[in-house]
Each structure stands twice: as C-alpha cells, then as structure tokens.
C-alpha cells in the first residue's frame, strides 16, 4: 500500500459512507469530513513531497509504487508524482472542498449528487497520480462519465442537450486518445516488451519519427478536446452553463486541466520530435482559442456563458504555452492551470450563489448588487481582477510567465502569435469590467432584488477559501515556480 493511493482511497471510502446516509445532514457531514481530510492530506503531502525532493533531487518521480495488473499485456498500476502533479492534486482538493460548500442545499436527490461528484473526484485524483497510460486512461474515463448525470439531472436550462453533447464530444476525444495511446504502446520498445509506463517509454525513446507523426496529432487532439482546443471547444460553453454550481467549478477548475496535463505529460513528453515538427498547426488552433474565446465572452449576456468562453480562452493559453516548448513558457502553463482552476472555480461559485438568489444570470436583468450583497460582490471583483491579470493575484503571474517564455522564440511565427495571444488580455479586461460595471455598480434593475440577503456561513467558507488560494498564488509565486521548474528538463 502506497501513500499516493490514499488520494483515490479516500473518495472511494466516501462513496461507501454515502451509501449509509439517510438524510441530507448526514450526506453533508460525510462530504465535508471526507473532502476536508483529503484537503489536509494534500497539504501535508505537499510538505512531505518537498522533504523527499530535497533528499532525492535527481529522480523524475517520487513516491513511486508499481504493481502488475495484467501481466500478459504488461499493464501496471503505477503511481508517482512530481511537483506538477502535487500542485494539481492540491488544486483538486481545494476545489472539491469548496465545491461541497457551494452545493450545500442540493435538491433533489442530494445523496446521489454527492456520490457522482465523488466518483468524478476518484477519476481526477487517479489521473494525476498515474504513471501508467492504461491506468491513466482508466481514471480519465471515470472522470468523464459522471458529468452526464450531474448535468442532465441537476443542471439548468437546456441541460439534456448540453449533457449529451459534452459526454459525446469528450468520449469522441478519448477515441482519438486511445488510438494514440495504443500507438505509443506498440512502438514503446524495440525488444518487443511493450510497456504503458511513461517513464520507461521516455527512457527507451524508441518510437520512430514516422510513427510519432500520426500518434502525436491523435494524442494531442484527444486531450485537447478536454482542454477546449478550437474547434472542439463547443461542448464547453453549453456544458458549463447548464451544469450545477459545484460541477461547473470542478469541471472548469479541474477537469479541463486534465487536458492540459495530458498534453504535457504524454503528447509533448513522449513524442518530442513530432511535437517539434507539428506544433505549428496546434499553435495556430490554440491561438484562435485564446482570442476567439475572449471575443466570445464579450458577446454573451449570460454570466455562466461569459465565464465558459473565458475558460476557453484561458485554457487555450495553457495549451499554447505548452506548445512553445521551453521551460519558462511551460512553467507559465502549469501556473496558469493552477491559477485558472482556482479563479474560475471562484467565479462559478459566485455566479451560482448570485443565481440562487436572483434566479437569473442575464446581465441585463442584474444591477447594483454591490449594495445588496456586498460580500459576494467584492469577491466577484477580486475574481474579475485575477482573471484580467492584476499583479498580486494569480492570473498575472501565470500569464506574464507564459508571454515572456513565448517571446523567447526568435522567429517571426512564434512572436506574431505571441503578440496576438497577448491581445486577449485587453479583451479579457473589456468583458470583465463590462460585467462588473453592469451588475455590481449599475443601478438596481429589479426592486425585488433589494430584499435579497448576503452570503451565509457555508457560502463564505467556499468563497473565502478560494479567494485566499488565488491571492496565495499571486503573492507567493516563487516556491510554486521552483516546484514546477525542478521537474522540467
């Protein structure tokens, strides 16, 4: 038994505990205790990791554990972490913990809701600790399917359409991905002893360039669909807009990071030559994602759609930076994953709380909320400022690093694209300030809104937790970038 497996084991135990819950109070208790344990554990684990890293600065992955699963096919349950995975685990734990508080009054069927949400968490945690591509794909698929019921059953708006669209598009992406993974597997070794283990494949580096040329696009597209790569991003606005609050938080905050993480860990890391040759195609696509997503957000009137398009833009930036293939840009990409995860979760939590009170997300029907619910409004401003990259908050650190890294390329092509991507910062400022000005500072549109109340304690827990994390990344970026930097070669 390995300490990393606890990340998966705790949610599984939560699932079992949920089975015995009789009413919503017990469900909440289990959810809070379980996610709190997971959060504490991931913080403790971070320090354990830092200690272990000091003791052993050379190995790529720490806390490794490897047990044969299917011997004949050389499939292993292999886990291990480096600095990047540790950060992602921490991110997931924070968002799960706050997500529970954001969905305090779930109705109907609260027990089922939390069970599916926890199953989703099992998949996400498992994905981030896996070193074996088979196990990784196993957890990846576990994370995808609960979305269908979470959105279809507890969502709002055209939820059935969105749920089906999201599920089928992501499953379509995983079809690409699986062929890519098999392609890597069957080329992983010259001796015929095929392996799914990422470290071994990287060490053997036996995949011929001709094979890489067809495997790389499949793998990158497969993960890219989840990372909202243009033109496969269309599931994201509908899905995020229809999903219930906690699911939007988890999905935009963590699940979309699975795409970026997978692209980084598998597509770029294992297929370096093809990545070098073909990155220009995907750079153009992600460049479009970045700019188009930002423009899309301007055109929307629904708060959740605005945020979903902004996620397309920000996640596009993650893939964009990964494709730049230098250490600075990649460090920026990982920081952007972290920053966007926290910030977008904060946004969706706040939108959920505002929607729960006003029953509308249309910015034309909202106004003057700063007077009515000052706490939520101030936090919304903080989230907005983080999103448009104000120094001192998480967004600035990440985007700055990405653009500095991208601009290090000497050639015209990369520099032009970088400048274009930079323009998204300005467009982001436009839609963020537009929304903030309209719904927070404008005149009160609907007199009924004057009777509404500000956040209650459980909502404050969720929001404050996320605000602190956003500020934490923004104020102390040094140790995070050190943590990331040590695992890039």
């Amino acid at each position, binding site marked *: 038994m390995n300490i990393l497996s606890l990340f998966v084991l705790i949610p599984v135990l939560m699932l079992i505990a949920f089975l015995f819950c009789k009413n919503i109070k017990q469900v909440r208790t289990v959810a809070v205790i379980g996610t709190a344990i997971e959060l504490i554990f991931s913080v403790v684990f971070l320090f354990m990791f830092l200690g272990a890293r000091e003791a052993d600065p050379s190995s790529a992955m720490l806390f490794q554990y490897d047990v044969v*699963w299917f011997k004949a*096919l050389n499939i292993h349950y292999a886990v291990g972490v480096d600095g990047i995975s540790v950060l992602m685990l921490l991110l997931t734990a924070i968002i799960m913990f706050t997500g529970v508080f954001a969905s305090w009054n779930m109705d109907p069927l609260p027990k089922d809701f939390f069970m599916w949400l926890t199953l989703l968490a099992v998949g996400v945690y498992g994905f981030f600790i896996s070193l074996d591509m088979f196990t990784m794909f196993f957890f990846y698929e*576990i994370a995808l399917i609960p979305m269908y019921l979470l959105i279809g059953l507890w969502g709002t708006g055209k939820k059935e359409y969105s749920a089906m669209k999201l599920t089928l598009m992501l499953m*379509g992406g995983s*079809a690409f991905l*699986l*062929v890519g993974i098999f392609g890597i597997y069957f080329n992983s070794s010259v001796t015929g002893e095929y392996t799914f283990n990422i470290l071994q494949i990287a060490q053997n580096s036996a995949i011929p360039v001709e094979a890489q040329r067809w495997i790389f696009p499949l793998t990158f597209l497969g993960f890219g669909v989840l990372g909202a790569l243009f033109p496969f991003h269309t599931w994201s606005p509908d899905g995020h807009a229809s999903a219930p609050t906690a699911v939007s938080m988890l999905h935009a905050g963590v699940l979309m990071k699975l795409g970026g993480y997978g692209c980084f860990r598998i597509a770029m890391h294992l297929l370096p030559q093809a990545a070098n040759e073909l990155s220009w195609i995907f750079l153009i696509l992600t460049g479009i994602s970045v700019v188009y997503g930002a423009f899309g957000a301007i055109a929307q009137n629904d708060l959740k759609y605005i945020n979903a398009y902004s996620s397309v833009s920000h996640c596009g930036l993650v893939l964009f930076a990964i494709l730049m293939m230098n250490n600075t840009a990649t460090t920026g990409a990982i920081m952007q994953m972290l920053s966007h995860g926290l910030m977008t979760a904060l946004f969706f939590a706040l939108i959920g709380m505002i929607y729960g009170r006003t029953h509308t997300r249309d910015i034309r029907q909202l106004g003057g909320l700063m007077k009515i619910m000052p706490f939520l409004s101030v936090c919304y401003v903080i989230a907005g400022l983080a999103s448009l990259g104000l120094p001192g908050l998480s967004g600035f650190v990440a985007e700055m690093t990405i653009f500095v890294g991208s601009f290090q390329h000497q050639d015209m092509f990369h520099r032009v694209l970088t400048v274009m991507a930079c323009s998204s910062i300005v467009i982001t400022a436009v839609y963020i300030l537009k929304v903030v000005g309209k719904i927070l500072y404008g005149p009160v549109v609907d007199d009924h809104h004057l009777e509404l109340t500000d956040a209650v304690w459980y909502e404050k827990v969720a929001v404050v937790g996320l605000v602190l994390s956003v500020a934490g990344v923004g104020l102390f970026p040094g140790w995070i970038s050190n943590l990331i930097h040590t695992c890039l070669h």
Partner: protein
Amino acid sequence: MNLSNYLLMKPELSLIAVFLLLIFYDLFASDNAKKYYFPIACLLFLVHTVYCFFINKDVLTTFGGMYVTGAAQITMKCVLNIGVFLIFLQANEWLKKPESIFKRGEFFMLTILTLLGMYLMISSGSFMIFYIGLEMASLPVAALVAFDKYKNNSAEAGAKYIFNAIFSSAIMVFGISFLYGACGTLYFDDMFQSIYSSPLIIMAMIFFLSGLFFKISLVPFHLWAPDVYQGAPTNVTLYLSTISKGAAVFALMIILYKVFPALAGVWQPIIWILILLTITIGNLFALRQKNLKRLLAFSSISQAGYIMLSVFSGSSAGMAATIFYVFVYVFSNLAAFGVISAIENKTGKVNMDDYNGLYLTNPKLALVMMISMFSLGGIPFTAGFFSKLFVFMAAMESGNPWNTVLVFLALVNTVVSLYYYLLVVKAMFINKNNSPIETLNTDSYLKISLVASVVGIFCIGVINCFYDYINTVSFGF
C-alpha cells in the same frame, strides 16, 4: 471404441446426466413433487457448472480425432455454463405463468440440448461432429423462440428463425462438401495440411463462413436477428444473443485457427469489411429504436462486430480477448435483459418511454440497468471497459496500419453506441413521467441473477485473475 473414449467427454456426459434426470423427474414425479421442479433444475445445473471447473484440462482427443478437448475448450464451456445458469434463474417468473407452467420442463430440456450441441461445436475435431453440433444447437432454439406460441410475434419469430437456420446450414454444408472434395478429408488436422490457396477452396471457405456468420449475425447476414430477438420470449432472446452467439464465435475462432491459417490473407480482409459494416450498421439502426428489446438486438449485432475484432487477429492474445469479451458480454447482457424481463413480466411494457422516471420508483432496477448499459458501452469500473480495450489491443497487435484504422473506426462507433445507451439511462434517471412504472416486487431468483451479474460486471475486469487465467489457456496460429 471402449468406455474410456466416452469418459473423456466429461462436460458432455455431465450435461446429459442433468438432462436425463430432469426428463425422468418431469415424467414421473407427482404434481405435488413438481412444485420444486424449478429450484431442483437450477441446482442440478449449478452442480454441473461447478463440476466443469474441475475437469482435467489436458489436451486430449478421442474417437480418432473427432473430439478434441483442452484447457481452451473447457474454459469456453465454463463461460457458456455460467451464462446458461444465470438465464435459468431469470426464467422463473416467466415460466410460472399459467400458460407456460405445464411446459416448464421443455424449456430446460431444449436449452440443455442446444447447449450440448454447442459443446460439440467447440470440441469438434472434424466437420462431421461440428455439423451435428451445429444442428443440435439450432433446431431446438427454433422451438424455444416459438415457446409463447399463442403470441403472434413469438410464432412468427420461430418461423423466421427456422427458415434462416436451415438456409444457413444448407449453405454451410455446401461449403463443407466442397472442402471435402478438395482435401479428401473432414478432419481439421488433415485438412490443415492439405489446404492451399485455390479458387475452389476459397469459395468453399466463403460458403462455410457465411453459414457461420448467419449464426453470429454479422452484417449482411443479420436481417433475421432483430425480428427474432423482438418476438422471442425475453429469456430466449437473452439465450440467443449471448450463449448462442458466443458459442458460434468460439467455434468459428477454433476453426479459423485450426483449419484456415493458410488462407489468412483471404479471410482477414473479408472479416475486416464485415466488422466495419456490422459495427456501423448495428449502431446506426439501434439509434432509432424505441423498443428496448429491439434496441438491444441491434446493439448485440454491433457487439458481435467488436467480438470479431479480436478473432481476426489470429494471435493467442486475440483468442484470450475473445473469450474474455464474451464472458463479460454475457454478464452485461444478462443484467440488461434481466431488468427488461422483470418489468415486462409484471407490466408488459418494453418501450423506452415506459422507462421514464424508473429511478424514482424502482431505484435498484434502474441502477442495474445503468450499470449494464455502461458495461455494454465500455465505461470504466465495469468489465466492459477492459474487454473492449483488450479487444482493441489484440486487433492492433500485428502493427498492420489497416487494423489501426479499423480500431479507430470501431472507437468512433463506441461513441455512437454510447449515445443510445445513454438514452436509456436518460429515460430512467432524467426524464419525467406522470405515470411511471409502479414499484415492483421482483422475483427472488431473478434478484439473485441480477446481483450475480452486477458483481460480475464490477469484478471480472478490475480483478485481474480472470483475464490472466483465460490468457494462459489461449492459443493462436
């Protein structure tokens, strides 16, 4: 020809013993004693199933090479046994009805007889035994399909089935006769040595395979399947779509591996095209079905395509993946049809719309149905995920780019299939219904069967010993 020859056929002998005991019990027991007919029949079959696990698994032949047994064959038979046992458990409620209780014994006997035929198909070492087994496995099924003969659908399905079965048998015998003419023998081993690529032999092989493809219901030989599956009593549909299909796949695989390796260059492209057609057409037709039995009929057509994906690779991993896929498929289909038959027997409803809101009134049945849909669609934690992945890996193993293309197209098709599997889930969990199916009190035997299926779906994949064992008994060419 002495007694020891017969004693090698242990699975068959044990099955015949069960068969005879049941006949005598049915004939001579008083009506009062027959109250326990169902549990006793199930118990006897369970004893047989368990016994089969412990049979000596050495490779042995008897009757001059006509009958071959070995670890692979016995494993296949065990897979079929487990499936049949669970089907028996599900049949109680249907057989209890006044219109079928008096012919309850026939159901068991006909099923056991067909199973015996399938044993012979799997264990055959010569086309003679193979053909006898095939006929034994198909004619009684026609009677089973028409079991509810007072229903028009059932009688019609029986007629359709028997015509198709006879027609396909005729085509197959035609092919076998040419093979005999060209090779001068019916024994697999001798034929393997004398087979070569000549137009006559290729034609004979295609005739032979076509006959078998009817049984597996590969497109374009599938046209009988949806009507028969819909018309037959649900338990018989289940038997047809899992056991009968699985046995035919096993037999096909053994013959392809033992007799036709020399012609692999001919049958592999043929099967390549058929797989693509089967998966695609099965899925596309399933998309539009409103009747759940018909939907699962088309789904089982497309599943047959996935099974064939591992058959045609010709490797030992391919055989392992095939057996494993059928094993998992039996459990997934059993769970799905178990829920359908539970609801059909109580309310007569089989349309997808009737299932709207099922989760609120019958949460357990809805969950079982969902798990089986996920397993059929290949969603992880369920065994269906593993079986699909192993099949794809077996197909890609050769490194042939065409196989990679086929795997990719099959994967795209799994997304299509997921759509209609999710429609069922959506009906049960998301759709609203003003008059949902009331809370049902399910038959206890059926419950056992459903629980066993769900446990199977969860355990067979994640726990590695099943695949590892199957892998040790498999062989390739």
